[in-house]
Structure formats: structure tokens, C-alpha cells
């Protein structure tokens, strides 16, 4: 086998990479080779790629700054075509064979970007410059330009090819983080028998154990992690999720986790976990240092450098300088020197460094410069040298270097704690915000709680897990805590950030290009509240949400305003901890899964009949067009069939609520504006229901099945809502009434046979019910056999024709429809759909609640005022009808409309102005609610709500519809058979 090229910056040995598995990938079209175990960032560094992005505002070249999800600079696009993802952090993208990555900023290329003009003219673009300019001649002139300059990656152009999953889970203990603390705690909790979920965002548990040279019980830390993980995996009460980041904590500790699929059929999975207790073991994030020109490629967090050196065997430079304000960066020096990589200087901003450390450094042969800082850096496309100066200003000259490791201290990862409403306090020694008050059912351990020492972390994690287990009723056994036999240098006392006085720019937020000068300007202009400061400078508002910069920003703000950092406080930590793919939040809920379709019980029959379906909450046929026939023509044909002979309509979705009990009639008297208790058994009445505000919320007929038993029909969309409302009244207000409500809507199928020959069809169907008008008149109901099926037949009509509603158990729907069509064939029966029903009822002027009424319509508006007024007892909404607004004479009232030109179609949604030939703008006098071409009358008709309409019958009003104006005549809202002769045959 030919050994692949290692890449110029790859060490010949070491690291946790699989050198037997080289992986080729491309960045900006150039092919490179890395290894299994690399991230995109480590592979790019190994290959000597320094600039991978251009900065947001100034278009300065930027390299890889960190080794985790906190990366502020190295945002790239991954993938091609529809699988492309913008704004990926190169630092967390695992390297795969054939990976295609590209820089997403910079034109024409990331190495030569014309946008750099902004950098060369940077004094013109201070924070908030856009507030002060682009007003002339107007924003629109400039907007396109500014918008094109903003944004990061390119979004997708087509649909997402991947699938996403969602999982719900419960557990006793959720451990956030699989580093040493998380693993230790998981072990203890698991042995106590708790159901544990441990989530670790990186591909493998271990955290610092995998990137530092730590030994536990004389073995490499990563071996301990591996052993622990395999032990945990064997335990049935532990769910160990790698590639899984805890993204947010919501009310009552409901927590979301985002898992990345590894060769799964899904790309990402969103977990919703409801833990009894949460243990935060999320570690800490190293912060940057503020100094002039601190943004060049080659400047990297010291811990990140250790990560690349130890884990990936990459030393991305040849000459190294370390700058720090705490002890932890010294570990980087020792690690590098151990590998014979020279470190030319350690610049420590503190005045005094522990003698032990000084001695160790001396022995290693690195120069220590105390009480100093970096005063400038050079290098156009990447770092070439740094300049060092003492705090008081003494210049110590340049040092050539292509790699600068920086450490500005460590910020505990407390985001999730803050989501859960824990509070933070500023800890002076560590110069960071640490947990203060914990939320209920929360614990924090390890670096996340501000601990520095690994042994302390392990001991505390074990203790915390024991305590939690006991609290949850699972006493834990003693479990040996491993001893740290080789540790790392801990941060110890952290020196406060001391930005030097310099006219050069010093970056606070690399991601959004916010500089110290911006901060000073913000303070000068009065944006001193931490939230104002954030919004004015946009610090921490980019995709990294300030993970490596916010702490410094708060410290700087404190210094600039003479406040302690604790007094400045922090901005609000809001979910998600890291950005979450929208597709994962949507899950499978798209397309057919967005809303399930509700099918009629006889759906297949309607399909056979060539029904044209529409979604009305239920899939219902609008009409049944014949081949070559338009929907309009089909409707006209079906209406004429009902008027001239007979038709059948599937009315199954109509709401069917059974209300029974000794107080049923009393209750319904309060529910309807109509009298209910006076209705004889076997009779049917039409009723309106109001809400307490006096507005019509539903209508329909109700049947008295027995003295104490009623069947209420509601609108098809209203069944659940009305059933719920009746329950609320019964359970919350009228608890003394003995009434039960059952929603039987889906239990019964219901077919309407309507037309002059309807009775003949029923007779032909075969029934033992006496159909004689005297025995079963209009608005009466009876039970019996129809077509050998147990049925209830009600003589009610929404078409104005002789009409029977036949209800049978839902499972008999197809059988009954088939029987009706067969029995009706000699009479020319035709199925008719919703659209045809709407024409039939419009010809009759029957109200359709939700079409003719809206959320302001009262009974009087639609001609039911007398009934409401005459009713003796109280009913829901009655009192509201007495208010001035309800008694006003200029309310809109239900009327009919006839265009002067009978062929001129009215359109629902047109507005009306009283008088002929009017022109808007004007206060509207009403609107057309329903309209159609009436085949029966062969003319256009409409129904409308018109101001004072009942007293305007015969007047001319103007229809206003978009640009159209024409005159129509106001008529009574009944166009056909006003005497109801056809109903009562």
C-alpha cells in the first residue's frame, strides 16, 4: 500500500486518527487528504489551509479559531445541490470520504475578496453606521446593496432530500455532556438503577480526556473513557447518545436534544426528553483575548491547539507564540515542547506567575514575558509576526510566528442552566459567570460549575450523582472514583482582560466583526445597558451567539462604564444552545402528515361516482362532474335534478351531539335562542346558538328523541367545538344540571334524499316508517328500517325540496348509498355535492353559518331577532343582545341581491355601497356573502349583509369588487318558493 501524503502539518505519529483510512475531500474545489477521525478543520489545518472564510463585515481573511461548536470564524458550506448546508462550523464536521466543502464568503474567492474594500475604508463603517446614513434619498435606494452584503451562506434552492425523525423519551436523569464529569456521574447513577440518558455532542464521549494528555489510574484518560462508555452501553437503564447536543430547556425541564444520524435513514433526530432531574456536565469554553489585529488566520485558542496537536496530530504552524491571562495555556506550551515544536515566547498579561510554572517553563526552554500583551500582529493572509509590549507601553518588538495560541480564560457552558432559569454570578478569580441559584431538579458539576481541577470534577460528579439517586429513591453504592495520576495545568487565577490602548482594531466578536472601538462608540453614545450594547454593536448576535466573545464583551463594557462585570450582567441566554435544523423541528409533519385527511365513511363510493373532492375538514365532493363537464355545469345539472326529480347528498360530516338526562331540555333552553322544552317528542326544530357576546356561533336542527333525550345537529366543522362548549358549561358553570353530552358525529352516516320524488325513492327503498305527510310531516323524525337497515329518518330540508335525512351506523354508509342510488334510478336520481347544496340553499335564502355570518353576526342581523326577543327564559348571549351596539339600527342585515343585468355574476367578497353608481373609498355598507348563478331562475343571485338592509328592499346598491362597479337590486333573501309549498308536500 502506498502511504498517502500526510499533509505538511501532520505529525508522523500520534493522535486519535486512523492512519489506515485516508479520506479524500475537496475544499473550494481543491482535493486534499485527511484521515478517519479528522474533522474538516483538523484536515484543513493538516494541509496548511489557513484562510477558510471571510469575515462578516470587513471581509478579512479568517482561519480556524476553535475546535468546537463555538467556532466564530470557520463557517463553510458542506455538500452539493439540494443536500448543501450553509454556515457549517468546519470544527465539528467529521471528515468523510468524498466530502465537498466550500468557503461561503468572499468574491471572487476566499483568498482574494473585493469586499475587502470595506476593510480598507473601515473608519467609515463603525457600529450602527447604517442608523446614521442611507436615509437619502431613501432606504430603498440602498437596501439592495446592504442586503446583498449581509447574510452568510447561500440557502438551498430546492426541497430538502433528507428525512428527520422525532423521539419522545422519559428518564430519571438527563446528563448533559459526556466528558469526565458526565461519564463519572452516569456510572454512579446507572449503578444505582436510575434510568439515565447521557447526551454528548461530539462523536465520542471523553471530552478533554480525548484531547489532553491526562492519565487516570496510570492509564491514558481516553482509555478510561472508552472503558466507561462500553460499560455504560451494556446497562439496559442507560441510553448513551453521542453526536447528540442538548439544545434547549423549556418549562418543567422539558428538554430538546438534537442527534445527528450516522449512516441512518434520517439525517437528524429531535428528542424531546422529560427528565426528573438534569445534571449539567457541559464543561467550559475557552475565551479569546482582546488585542490589536487579533483576528488573523493562525490565531487560535490555546485549548483548540492542544486539541489539534494531541487528538489529530496536527501542528498547524512552525513558529508558535502563546498569549494568555491564565495558567491553562501553559499546557499548550508543554505539549508542543514535548513534540519538539519550538515556542518562542509566552506572553502573560498577569504580573505574577506561580514560581512552579515559571520553573517548568524555564526547564522547557520557553521565554516568559510577564505583565505584557500582544500589541499588534502582522500578516495579510495569515499571521506572520506579533509585536509584544508591556502594559505600561514599553515595546518589546516583533516575534516572527505563524501560530499564536491565545487563552482569555474559561467560561462555564451555562447556557442550558440559563434556559431553565438558573441564575449566574460573576466570579472574580476565574473572571467568568458561574452558576448561582439552580432551578428545581437541577445539578451542575465539573467545569460547567466553575471547577478547574479534574480530580475535584470526578469526585464532585460522583457525589452529585449519588445525591440525585438518593433524592429519586435509588440509594447508590460506593463506586471507586479514578485517581488523576497525570493532570494538566489548570487555569488558576485568571487575569482581567486588559485591552491595550491602540488605534488599531481589536476584535471582541470575531463572528460579527465587532471591535473595541465599536464598544467604545456604543458607550460614548449611551448604549450602556448590556442589551443596548449587544443590539447596537451586534456583539454575540451571529450564529455562534458569542460563545467565545460575549464574556469579553461584558468585561469590556464593565471597564468602559466603570462597573463591575457582575453589575453589567449578561444578555439573556436563549435556546437553542446551537442552531437547530428547521427540518428536525418540523419532523415528519409535512405533506400528508401535515394534517391527516378525514374521509367520509362512503368515500370509495364517492370516488366511484367521480366526485370532485375538496377539503372541508372532511374530504367531500363539490359535485360529480361527468366526463368533459365543468364543475359549474355539473352543479347546475345537479341542482336542476333535485328541483325536478330527486338527488342524494352525503351529509355524514354534520355534527351529531346526543344530549340526555333529566335536565337536558332545561339545559338546551339555555343553549339555543329557540324554545327547546316545548318541542314534542319526535319533532325537529331549527335553532341558533350564540356565545355570551351575543354572536351566532352555530346553527342546526335538533330532534327530541325522547322526553330526556335530544340529538343536536351542528355545522360539520362545529361538532367538536360545540360539544366542548356544552361540556364547559355543564362542568364549570351549571354543575347542578344532570345532563350528558356525547359527540356521535363519526358514529352515524347520514344521507339526504331531496326532491319532488324523494318519497318515491324512500318507498322504493323499502321502509316500515309511515311516510304519509300526516304521519311524518316536515320537521318530524321517526326510527325504523330503511333498506333493511336500522335507520332514523328526519324530514328536514336545506334545499327547499321535500327532503329526508336518513341516518344509519357509519359502517352501513356504502350499503345505504348504493341502495338509494339503485332505488332512485327509475326516478333519475343524481348524487349532488356541496357546491350544488350551496346553490340550492342560496336559492332558498337559507343561512349558512360561517359563510353568511361572521364573528359579529347576531340573530337579529339574520332575521331571528323576534324569536330571541320573545323567548321567555335566559339563554347564552341573551344579555349581550340588549347592549346599545346590538340595538343599533344601522347594523348589517341579511338580504338578497339581484343584479340589474341578470347575467352579471356576483362574487362573494364584493362590497356594497348604498345607492347606484357609487365610488369608493367610502365606509362600506356591506358585502356579498354568497352568490351563484341560479339554474332554477336562470339568473345571478346573491345573499349579502347590508347596512339596515331589511328596510332597503327594492333599493339599488353599488357592488364594488376590485376595479369593477355595477348596480344590483336589494330583494328579500329568498328567491325560490317563498311560501314553502314544496317543503310541505
Amino acid at each position, binding site marked *: 500500500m502506498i502511504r498517502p501524503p500526510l499533509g505538511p502539518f501532520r505529525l508522523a505519529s500520534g493522535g486519535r486518527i486512523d492512519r489506515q483510512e485516508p479520506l479524500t475531500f475537496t475544499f473550494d474545489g481543491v482535493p486534499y487528504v485527511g484521515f478517519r477521525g479528522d474533522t474538516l478543520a483538523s484536515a484543513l489545518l493538516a494541509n496548511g489551509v489557513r484562510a477558510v472564510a471571510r469575515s462578516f463585515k470587513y471581509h478579512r481573511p479568517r482561519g480556524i479559531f476553535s475546535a468546537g461548536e463555538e467556532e466564530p470564524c470557520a463557517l463553510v458550506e458542506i455538500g452539493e445541490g439540494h443536500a448543501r448546508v450553509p454556515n457549517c462550523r468546519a470544527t465539528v464536521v467529521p471528515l468523510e470520504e468524498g466530502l465537498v466543502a466550500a468557503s461561503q464568503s468572499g468574491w471572487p474567492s476566499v483568498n482574494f475578496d473585493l469586499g475587502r474594500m470595506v476593510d480598507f475604508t473601515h473608519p467609515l463603517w463603525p457600529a450602527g453606521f447604517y442608523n446614521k446614513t442611507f436615509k437619502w434619498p431613501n432606504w430603498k435606494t440602498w437596501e439592495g446593496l446592504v442586503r446583498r452584503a449581509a447574510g452568510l451562506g447561500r440557502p438551498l434552492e430546492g426541497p430538502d432530500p433528507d428525512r428527520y425523525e422525532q423521539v419522545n423519551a422519559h428518564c430519571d436523569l438527563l446528563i448533559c455532556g459526556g466528558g469526565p464529569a458526565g461519564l463519572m456521574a452516569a456510572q454512579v447513577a446507572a449503578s444505582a438503577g436510575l434510568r439515565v440518558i447521557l447526551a454528548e455532542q461530539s462523536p465520542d464521549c471523553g471530552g478533554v480526556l480525548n484531547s489532553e494528555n491526562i492519565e487516570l489510574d496510570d492509564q491514558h484518560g481516553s482509555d478510561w473513557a472508552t472503558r466507561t462508555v462500553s460499560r455504560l452501553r451494556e446497562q439496559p437503564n442507560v441510553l448513551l447518545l453521542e453526536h447528540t447536543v442538548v439544545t434547549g430547556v423549556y418549562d*418543567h425541564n*422539558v428538554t430538546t436534544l438534537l442527534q445527528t444520524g450516522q449512516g441512518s435513514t434520517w439525517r437528524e433526530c429531535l428528542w424531546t426528553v422529560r427528565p426528573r432531574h438534569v445534571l449539567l456536565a457541559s464543561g467550559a469554553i475557552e475565551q479569546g483575548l482582546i488585542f490589536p489585529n487579533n483576528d488573523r488566520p493562525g490565531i487560535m485558542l490555546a485549548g483548540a491547539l492542544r486539541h489539534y496537536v494531541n487528538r489529530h496530530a496536527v501542528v498547524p504552524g512552525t513558529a508558535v507564540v502563546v498569549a494568555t491571562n491564565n495558567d491553562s495555556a501553559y499546557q499548550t506550551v508543554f505539549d508542543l515542547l514535548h513534540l519538539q515544536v519550538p515556542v518562542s515566547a509566552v506572553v502573560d498579561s498577569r504580573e505574577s506567575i506561580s514560581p512552579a510554572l515559571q520553573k517548568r517553563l524555564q526547564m522547557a526552554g520557553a521565554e516568559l514575558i510577564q505583565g505584557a500583551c500582544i500589541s499588534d500582529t502582522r500578516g495579510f493572509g495569515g499571521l506572520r509576526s506579533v509585536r509584544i509590549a508591556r502594559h505600561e507601553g514599553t515595546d518589546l518588538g516583533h516575534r516572527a510566528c505563524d501560530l499564536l495560541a491565545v487563552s482569555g480564560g474559561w467560561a462555564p457552558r451555562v447556557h442550558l442552566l440559563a434556559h431553565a432559569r438558573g441564575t449566574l454570578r460573576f466570579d472574580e478569580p476565574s473572571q467568568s459567570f458561574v452558576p448561582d441559584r439552580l432551578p428545581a431538579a437541577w445539578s451542575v458539576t465539573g467545569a460547567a460549575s466553575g471547577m478547574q481541577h479534574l480530580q475535584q470534577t470526578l469526585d464532585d460528579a460522583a457525589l452529585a450523582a449519588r445525591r440525585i439517586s438518593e433524592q429519586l429513591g435509588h440509594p447508590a453504592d460506593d463506586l471507586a472514583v479514578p485517581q488523576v495520576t497525570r493532570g494538566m495545568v489548570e487555569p488558576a487565577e485568571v487575569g482581567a482582560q486588559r485591552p491595550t490602548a491602540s488605534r488599531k482594531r481589536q476584535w471582541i466578536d470575531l463572528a460579527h466583526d465587532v471591535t473595541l472601538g465599536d464598544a467604545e462608540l456604543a458607550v460614548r453614545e449611551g448604549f450602556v445597558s448590556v442589551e443596548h450594547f449587544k443590539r447596537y454593536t451586534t456583539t454575540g448576535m451571529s450564529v455562534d451567539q458569542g460563545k467565545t466573545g460575549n464574556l469579553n464583551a461584558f468585561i469590556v463594557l464593565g471597564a468602559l462604564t466603570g462597573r463591575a462585570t457582575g453589575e453589567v450582567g449578561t444578555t439573556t441566554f436563549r435556546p437553542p444552545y446551537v442552531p437547530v435544523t428547521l427540518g428536525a423541528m418540523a419532523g415528519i409533519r409535512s405533506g400528508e402528515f401535515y394534517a391527516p385527511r378525514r374521509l367520509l365513511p362512503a368515500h370509495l363510493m364517492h370516488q366511484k361516482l367521480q366526485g370532485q373532492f375538496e377539503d372541508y375538514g372532511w374530504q367531500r365532493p363539490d359535485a360529480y362532474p361527468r366526463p368533459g363537464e365543468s364543475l359549474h355545469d355539473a352543479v347546475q345539472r345537479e341542482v336542476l335534478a333535485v328541483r325536478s326529480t330527486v338527488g342524494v347528498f352525503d351529509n355524514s360530516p354534520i355534527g351529531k351531539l346526543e344530549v340526555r338526562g333529566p335536565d337536558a331540555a332545561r339545559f338546551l333552553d339555555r343553549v339555543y335562542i329557540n324554545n327547546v322544552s316545548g318541542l314534542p317528542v319526535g319533532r325537529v326544530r331549527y335553532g341558533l346558538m350564540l356565545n355570551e357576546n351575543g354572536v351566532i356561533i352555530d346553527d342546526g336542527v335538533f330532534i327530541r328523541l325522547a322526553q330526556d333525550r335530544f340529538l343536536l345537529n351542528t355545522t360539520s366543522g362545529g361538532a367538536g367545538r360545540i360539544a366542548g362548549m356544552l361540556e364547559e358549561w355543564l362542568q364549570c358553570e351549571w*354543575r347542578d344540571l344532570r345532563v350528558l353530552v356525547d359527540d356521535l358525529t363519526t358514529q352515524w352516516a347520514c344521507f339526504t334524499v331531496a326532491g319532488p320524488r324523494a318519497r318515491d325513492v324512500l318507498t322504493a327503498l323499502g321502509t316500515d316508517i309511515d311516510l304519509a305527510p300526516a304521519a311524518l310531516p316536515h320537521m318530524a323524525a321517526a326510527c325504523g328500517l330503511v333498506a333493511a337497515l336500522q335507520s332514523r329518518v328526519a324530514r328536514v330540508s336545506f334545499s327547499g325540496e321535500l327532503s329526508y335525512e336518513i341516518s344509519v351506523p357509519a359502517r352501513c354508509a356504502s350499503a345505504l348509498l348504493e341502495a338509494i342510488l339503485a332505488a332512485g334510478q327509475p326516478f333519475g336520481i343524481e348524487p349532488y355535492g356541496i357546491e350544488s347544496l350551496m346553490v340550492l340553499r342560496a336559492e332558498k335564502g337559507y343561512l349558512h353559518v360561517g359563510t353568511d355570518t361572521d364573528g359579529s353576526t347576531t340573530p337579529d342581523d339574520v332575521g331571528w331577532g323576534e324569536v330571541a326577543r320573545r323567548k321567555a327564559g335566559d339563554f347564552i348571549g341573551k344579555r349581550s343582545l340588549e347592549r346599545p351596539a346590538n340595538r343599533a339600527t344601522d347594523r348589517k342585515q341579511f338580504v338578497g341581491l339581484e343584479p340589474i343585468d341578470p347575467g352579471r355574476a356576483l362574487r362573494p367578497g364584493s362590497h356594497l355601497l348604498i345607492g347606484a353608481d357609487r365610488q369608493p373609498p367610502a365606509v362600506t355598507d356591506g358585502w356579498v356573502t354568497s352568490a351563484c348563478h341560479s339554474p332554477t331562475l336562470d339568473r345571478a343571485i346573491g345573499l349579502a349583509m347590508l347596512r339596515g338592509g331589511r328596510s332597503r328592499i327594492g333599493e339599488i346598491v353599488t357592488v364594488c369588487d376590485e376595479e369593477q362597479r355595477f348596480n344590483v337590486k336589494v330583494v328579500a333573501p329568498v328567491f325560490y318558493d317563498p311560501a314553502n309549498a314544496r317543503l310541505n308536500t
Partner: protein
Amino acid sequence: MLLIKCPYCGVRDQTEFRCGGEASRARPDHPEHISDPDWAQYLFYRENPKGLLRERWVHRYGCGQWFIVSRDTVTHDILDSLPMGDLPPKGRDAP
């Protein structure tokens, strides 16, 4: 996402429930005898405390029962859930 305890079914997700607002409102026994402002008080005015609120919830996708929850409107902590009848209606006919 709230986790709500139904007194009949136990702790369930918020998605199974619907909130009906302030629990202590009561319909006047004789609406016809009260003034427009008093009727408006019953119709439109609800307790809106910053802190503990007794409100009614219904286990809509469960047992269908209304019950009373004491919830903090700032922290969303739920102190208790009681069956509907356990709370005496207040202010009946005393608008």
C-alpha cells in the same frame, strides 16, 4: 412545554389540554337585571395577575374533564390541580 397534572389521568403534556382562563368567574344568575358595565365585567374582565393564577383547563385529548390548576404566570410552576367541584364558585350573583 408545560407538564400538567390532570386530577383524573396524571401528568401529561400540555398538548393534551386546553386552557379556559380564570377559574373563579361565575355567570350572574339574572343577567337581565344587571347593567351593561356589570355585564361587560363578567364578559371581558379576567384576572391577569403576575404570579399565582387559578385557571381552568380541560383534558381535551384525554378524559375530557375540566379541572382547576394553580399556576404561576411568571415561572409557569404548577402548584396543584384540583377537580372542578373542589373549588367553591365565588361571587355568584354579586357582580
